[in-house]
């Protein structure tokens, strides 16, 4: 992790039963702020943005002190360099899209404003909407315009408070894809509130879980979702193996992909050319382990590897298996570790169904 760009240490009493009390540092990454309604996530964002003045503490962004209760400093909103998007787009209804995008660029040379508006509009996929009034846009378009407006002045920090929760599936995917794309180009540190594990996995490099005003857990989205996921919806609560790969060949009813530095996998037919780069994802739960080569199984992939490490936590265990330069995570119950005699260095066969290999586009 690089040098922290945002350092926050503050306490703020929201009401009798909720006090925000956090101490954290964030570098150039997308941090997911996860937690149930009423945990104080939105309040924390508003405290950082300066919409609410914290009771005490200190907030520092890059080399700027935004708030310091000791020297009674509370930087005005206009000098914070923070972009904010909400569930509710806050477009200026009396200005066209282009004027909304240029709103935060006041005072800069005309040519610079024009080129920056064009650039950010293209990145956010709203370049065909520049003449339109906000009232004529769809919900998804409005949110993308809101994102572009927030990013146009190149903020030092982007805060997102459930920006997709009012959108339909298409609008969600579109906004998330745009946000991911802009983040790749501009690298703006981002804090993103959501209660959707899918969004967390799609966007986040770090995930913070907030409960009753404090950060109770921090880690990668995978680790954290594994620890805090809802037990009855285990679909997403499992570790993922994600590898880059290319399409190797097409067979009758299936395709073959070659994982970079790893084995070849059989997957359901892909409608792409041989050589297309892909990202493949296999859930750690979807892999079985065997000590010897097994025959007559419905699973299409049997991959030989070596046990690297065994991590136990609670009533499950994760076995790390190395094949070539790729390391796989396989979830098993602890009993299986004992019964199969799994130890570091042992040879194992990973059994993976073709349908257990999920293909993600490489550019997402």
């Amino acid at each position, binding site marked *: 992790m690089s040098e922290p760009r945002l350092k926050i240490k503050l306490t703020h009493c929201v009401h009798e039963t909720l006090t925000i009390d956090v101490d954290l540092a964030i570098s150039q990454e997308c941090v997911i702020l996860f937690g149930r309604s009423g945990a104080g996530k939105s309040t924390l964002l508003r405290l950082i*943005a300066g*919409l609410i003045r914290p009771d005490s503490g200190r907030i520092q962004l890059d080399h700027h002190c935004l708030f310091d209760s000791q020297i009674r400093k509370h930087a*005005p*909103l*206009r*000098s*914070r*360099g*923070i*972009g*904010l998007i*909400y569930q*509710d787009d*806050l477009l*200026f*209804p*009396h200005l066209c899209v282009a004027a909304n995008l240029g*709103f*935060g660029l*006041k005072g800069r040379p005309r040519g610079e404003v024009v080129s920056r508006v064009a650039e950010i509009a293209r990145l956010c996929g709203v370049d065909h909407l520049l003449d339109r009034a*906000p*009232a*004529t846009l769809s919900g998804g378009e409005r949110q993308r315009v809101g994102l572009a*407006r*927030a990013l146009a*002045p190149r903020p030092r920090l982007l805060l997102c408070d459930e920006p997709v929760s009012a959108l339909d599936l298409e609008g969600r995917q579109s906004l998330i894809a745009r946000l991911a794309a802009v983040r790749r180009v501009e690298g703006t540190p981002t804090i993103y509130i959501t209660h959707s594990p899918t969004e967390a996995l799609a966007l986040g490099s770090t995930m913070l879980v907030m409960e009753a005003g404090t950060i109770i857990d921090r880690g990668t989205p995978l680790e954290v979702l594994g620890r805090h996921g809802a037990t009855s919806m285990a679909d997403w609560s499992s570790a993922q193996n994600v590898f880059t790969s290319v399409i190797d060949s097409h067979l009758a009813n299936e395709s073959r992909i070659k994982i970079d530095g790893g084995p070849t996998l059989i997957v359901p037919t892909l409608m792409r050319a041989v050589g297309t780069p892909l990202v493949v994802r296999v859930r750690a739960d979807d892999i079985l382990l065997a000590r010897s080569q097994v025959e007559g199984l419905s699973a299409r992939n049997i991959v030989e590897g070596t046990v690297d490490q065994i991590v136990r936590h609670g009533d499950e265990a994760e076995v790390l298996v190395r094949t070539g330069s790729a390391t796989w995570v396989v979830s098993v119950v602890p009993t299986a570790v004992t019964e199969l005699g799994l130890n570091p260095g042992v040879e194992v066969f990973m059994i993976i169904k073709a349908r257990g290999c999920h293909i993600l586009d490489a550019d997402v």
Partner: protein
Amino acid sequence: MLSDFAPLWLSLQIATFATCLIVVIGGPISMVLARVSFAGKGLIGGALILPLVLPPTVLGYYLLQVLGREGWIGQGLEHTLGMILVFNPVGAVIASSIAAFPLFLLPARSAWEGVKPDLEDAARLLGRSELSVFTSVTLPLAWRGLAAGAVLAFARALGDFGATLMVAGDIPDRTRTAPIAIYNAVSMGDSATAARLTFAMSMLAITALWLAGRAQPSPARGSRS
């Protein structure tokens, strides 16, 4: 015939001054009432719309008590500046301003309240100063409501009868406004003058209502689509 319209011309002048007075004083007041929370806000807000339901003669009576040549303010002004407020056009402006004030205050307050503070915060986060936020976000979103209020107040000031009569009296060419002239014409059986003035005043009132209706933001406008 021409002199029939002297009261109308006088009324228009008085109402114009009254409207300016109302907007200059009422603009900031309505904004404070819409935006700032303070103790006694309900009381002050209520007192300011009292002229809407207070009998105009009661209003006139109070104004006479305060502004009259024996009143607290009237006496002071007369002794220091030699200025007399009652039974002259100044009194008519003051009386009709106060009577018409609530008709500006109510829509103006709604107009300010209709501008979401979140939008202003968005403008601030985009680097704008308070003045810039006001001129580029708040005012453009509120001005239709303010304009509607100003037009309504103008119409109400134009039509004031009771308060003006009490404070300014009925002095031809000085304080005989159109509504008072209509009363006189009817009392004296001068139907033709009454009809002409009534027609002119009705047209003005209808025009004002039409303008106010056009300027009045529909519930959805100014905040969201």
